[in-house]
């Protein structure tokens, strides 16, 4: 029988945003001697609200800062969603982060490509809010 499937069908051309995020999440523990970790959980929801706007048929993920030593404390820093095409990725962020990044109301933070996604999570990780939460956890563990 002739195989009609293309040879490269199982080889994904693009890395899923959540895979990139998980790779990055695993690095936080190294920088904090395991005191502060990052975790990503897939939400059961298949729709995503940013402000008043509803985006349907989305894979929704929540990003957490976690402290195993503080009763597994977790802070939901941001949520993100993408459709079957992987991009664009939509983000829902704290008001504080939104202000810091100069976001306009009802205009979600969006990454339209892998490079934009990497740039966006870099900004989120470096935001004052992220640093404040990490520092706050570390100070409680001193």
């Amino acid at each position, binding site marked *: 029988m002739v195989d009609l499937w293309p040879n490269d069908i199982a080889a994904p051309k693009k890395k899923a945003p959540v895979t990139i995020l998980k790779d990055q999440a695993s690095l936080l523990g190294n920088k904090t001697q395991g005191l502060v970790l990052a975790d990503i959980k897939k*939400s059961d929801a298949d729709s995503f*609200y940013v402000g008043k706007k509803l985006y349907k048929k989305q894979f929704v993920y929540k990003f957490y800062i976690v402290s195993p030593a503080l009763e*597994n404390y*977790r*802070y939901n820093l941001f949520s993100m969603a993408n459709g079957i095409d992987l991009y664009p990725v939509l983000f829902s962020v*704290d008001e504080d982060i939104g202000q810091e990044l100069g976001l306009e109301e009802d205009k979600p933070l969006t990454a339209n490509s892998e490079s934009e996604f990497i740039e966006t999570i870099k900004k989120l990780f470096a935001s004052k809010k992220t640093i404040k939460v990490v520092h706050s956890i570390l100070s409680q563990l001193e």
Partner: protein
Amino acid sequence: MFAEFSIEPSHLLICLNSNNKYHYFYSPTIGCEKIHIFTRFKIDFIQPIYESERLTIRHLTLPGLLDIILAINHFPSKLYWEPASQSLECVALADTIKYVENQVGHSRTVLVGDLNMNPFEDGVVGASGLHAVMSRTIAKKGSRIVQSKQYPFFYNPMWNFFGDATPGPPGTYYYDRSEHKVYFWNIFDQVLIRPELIDFFDNDEMKIIESDGEISFVTHHGFPDVNNISDHLPIFFKLNL
């Protein structure tokens, strides 16, 4: 517990501790900056275990008493969020609470806060939302099954506070506008109690507060004093653990 707080916590702490009757503590959050908590016990007993921008969930572990989960939240205002958004947020909150209950190992949970929704709205009543019912008897059944999925109840005592036949004001939030459907009085500030804690909760001790004993929180018309105090009236409740 404050959902709206515009002064420095230390200022209030100084005021609270100036009468020498009780000693108050301020329990800081780690990441949630909307909510502020003052206690009459050491803050070690009320550690945060889950937070987001508008939610802090604490594990209350007072010595010699049953430990409980205390979730405090402040939902976005109706001015900024549509009813559908609010309902979906309730579904997310319900899931978060269930996640924390699984982590802690019990569901002795109290949810309190400014829900910016009335007790009868979809997100508060809906099974996949907060699933908060008006009757202790129904809530004490524990849960119910909808479409093969089990949903735990909350008991919502706030239903008892609607209207002017109640001992206090007809609601916690007043809204009047020239449109067809207006409730005027709303109960956005609520406390919801899991069935496991209902027997520790006395309805007679719960109230909507109009005054701190010296200063009135309402105008001479009986509406919340928006200009001097707040557009919401606080609630008082007690759990005899």
